[in-house]
């Protein structure tokens, strides 16, 4: 019996997987092709860079949201937490006048700390993620206003701060493609998150929690600790988004942020991650975030009236996801 089973053991369908992944881009590619045909201004280096730049903040937020959503949770606080982190950076750099790296570190730590709090409320107090992060969303929104005195904090005293997102290290080497640093940071965060999800124990538990939390607990795993870890990591990533947006605006805008969680979650779901947990990819999320930016940019380039932009965006989001579903079904 032992022997007969042996030949059946393969290591998995790798090739079809890669093909599958390639096809996932099809919705995005279709949009890009359509807009390129419709307007000569779309397929210009400048515009592509603008689209990427527009994706950077939402992309980073969406990556954070992906981690949480794979555990079967949700994080409604990513938008206002981003702002909170930006405000913390503002306090450190502008109010206290400390050097730039400390401001960045402070923002990331603030995000991590907030993630720890959300994670703890969820894991230890068993408050559903929706409520815990809704509460955090409001708390952080209020605190950002309180700390900043409801006024933007400018980074004028921190020279180079706005180069974090807007400068282009790539452009110094390849002047033809001045990809902004913000975009490179998005890619770096994506690589990091994909690495953690795919290669580390934290990533494995992330999927396992979303798949069957009770089974994980009964396997003797310290479920609470890992869950809190995921929220903390997501928080830290949101901190990066906070730095990015602050750099881009050269200021911490305390009122901004609410509503951004919806775009982030939309990117995640468009990217094929299931809200019920257990499955999802960072690549999918990036594609989802790009689809949202390409749509917004393309419709603007075509000078579509704003109210119709909204209608068309709604339709295309549904269609893009439907196309993806059809693709999975036929493969």
């Amino acid at each position, binding site marked *: *019996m*032992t022997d*007969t*089973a*042996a030949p*059946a*053991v*393969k*290591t*998995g*369908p790798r090739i079809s997987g890669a093909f599958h992944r390639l096809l996932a881009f099809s919705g995005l590619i279709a949009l890009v092709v359509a807009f390129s045909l419709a307007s000569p201004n779309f397929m210009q280096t400048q515009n592509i860079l603008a689209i990427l730049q527009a994706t950077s903040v939402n992309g980073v937020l969406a990556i954070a949201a992906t981690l949480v959503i794979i555990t079967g949770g949700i994080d409604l606080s990513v938008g206002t937490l981003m702002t909170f982190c930006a405000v913390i950076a503002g306090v450190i750099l502008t109010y206290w006048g400390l050097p730039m790296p400390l401001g960045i570190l402070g923002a990331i730590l603030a995000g991590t700390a907030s993630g720890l709090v959300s994670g703890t409320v969820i894991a230890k107090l068993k408050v559903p993620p929706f409520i815990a992060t809704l509460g955090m969303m409001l708390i952080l929104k209020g605190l950002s206003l309180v700390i900043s005195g409801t006024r933007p904090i400018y980074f004028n005293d921190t020279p180079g701060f706005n180069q974090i997102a807007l400068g282009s290290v790539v452009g110094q080497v390849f002047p033809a493609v001045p990809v902004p640093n913000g975009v490179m940071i998005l890619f770096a965060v994506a690589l990091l998150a994909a690495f*953690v999800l795919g*290669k*580390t*124990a*934290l990533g*494995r*538990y992330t*999927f*396992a929690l*979303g*798949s*069957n939390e*009770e*089974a*994980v*607990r*009964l*396997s*003797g*795993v*310290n*479920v609470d600790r890992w869950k809190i870890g995921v929220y903390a990591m997501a928080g830290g990533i949101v901190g990066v988004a906070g730095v990015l947006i602050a750099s881009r605006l050269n200021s911490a805008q305390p009122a901004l942020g609410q509503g951004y969680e919806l775009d982030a979650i939309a990117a995640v779901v468009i990217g094929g991650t299931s809200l019920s*947990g*257990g*499955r999802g990819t960072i690549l999918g999320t990036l594609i989802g975030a790009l689809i949202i930016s390409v749509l917004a940019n393309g419709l603007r380039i075509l000078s579509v009236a704003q109210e119709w932009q909204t209608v068309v965006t709604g339709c295309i989001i549904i269609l893009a996801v439907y196309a993806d579903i059809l693709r999975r079904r036929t493969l």
Partner: protein
Amino acid sequence: MSAEVGSGAPGPLVEMTDIDKSFPGVRALAKARFELLPGEVHALMGENGAGKSTLMKILSGVYSRDGGTVLLNGQPVEITSPRQAQDLGIGIIHQELALMRDLTAAQNIFIGREPRRFGILDEGRLNRDAAAIFASMNLRLDPTFKVETLTIAKQQMVEIAKALSYRSRVLIMDEPTAALNDAEIAELFAIINRLKAEGVGIVYISHKMDEIKRIADRVTIMRDGEYVGTVRAADTPIETIISMMVGRTLSAETLAIPNTAAAPVALEVKNLNRGREIRDVSFSVRRGEILGFAGLMGAGRTEVARAIFGADRRESGEVWVHGKRVGIASPKDAVAAGIGYLSEDRKHFGLAIGLDVRNNIALASLPRFTGPGGVLDEAGMQKEAVAYIRTLAIKTPSDTQEARLLSGGNQQKVVIAKWLLRDCDILIFDEPTRGIDVGAKSEIYKLLNGLAAEGKAIIVISSELPEVLRLSHRIAVMCEGRLTGILPGGASQEEIMRLATLREPAMQVRHAG
């Protein structure tokens, strides 16, 4: 070998011929064949993953077939939905319970056919009708209880009640007794005999060989998705059926009982209590010993196991491991103390259904595969997973197949592999062979014996007495939350049953240890 058996006078109810079905990477059925006569109980047998459930899902409209024909009463039919199967008089009890956990038992039974008055649901009648079905099954169950509060066995009974309520001409039972104890099985067989007398054709899938002899008229055997043969149950020896299933003859291994009386105690449980479910349970297991747990449904064996493991709260009681008292507040503490627990409910508590086979096997052992920076050693995990896939003969196209796509028995093997890999000193296995075929069962028995021989302490909770008797050095028996006695390995079934029904709380039994 494949002795064809001709049927009697009436034409067949169902004839399935040359049925093909493939899933990505898996050929589940290849020219499979099956025939069912009115008034017969036709057992469908085969190893885990042989294609039994798949074939029956095709008949009941869950899957569509890739090729072949299905005749119902001699007429070709295309069954494209469960609804259509129902309308054609085909009912099925699925292997994986398909209940709505938030609804009551009665609501589950009549889903889609609720009695209404003036468009308003008639809950009174719904509950009365359900109660009547339960009564006809001799089942004591409140139809207004939510299904999620019921034990697996009761849930299984609800599934059976639901299937009966359709009054189908063809009734498919896919491992209906996997979660049932002897008394309930006897009740189910009485029902089957009644249905038989009414001319209902019953497809009966089970891995419990003794049941086949007791209830089946004919047996169709499948292997690797193919038809092997059909035999008459009464005049075919079990050994023949088994060899048709596995393609060779199995030698009957005997259990060598090593003397463990002198070995040090590995696990000691003292005065475990929780309400009426666990009442002052104390026992110990020595290194190298297999302690069987017997009892009727609801005796509290699972609760004891879960309480020891820290999965549920306990009111009082101490757990000692290797002579040291350990504080166990959660499963992670238990595992840290060297205790593993295999749950009786693999779907809810065992398997991470979305993960692949490799990761399910590694789930309890990830720290072992975690290198610097938290990076996982995939190659190491794969090596172990593949090894267990071989040892336990888990039928899967690869170790990266999603666990949910495996057949029920193979899923169970995956969960067993998880605990074997974790290598705990003390293993508590709750219904470990639920849904597992005969061949694999004996592999698992061998494994458990081997583990005991290595010095591990093992607790096996099982509702199958032969299993308990075959494996155990000693047998603990529970009734209504109390440990009513601990018997030596060779105890008789009668003795066990006496303790399992010993309802007097006055009786205090000394146990060896």
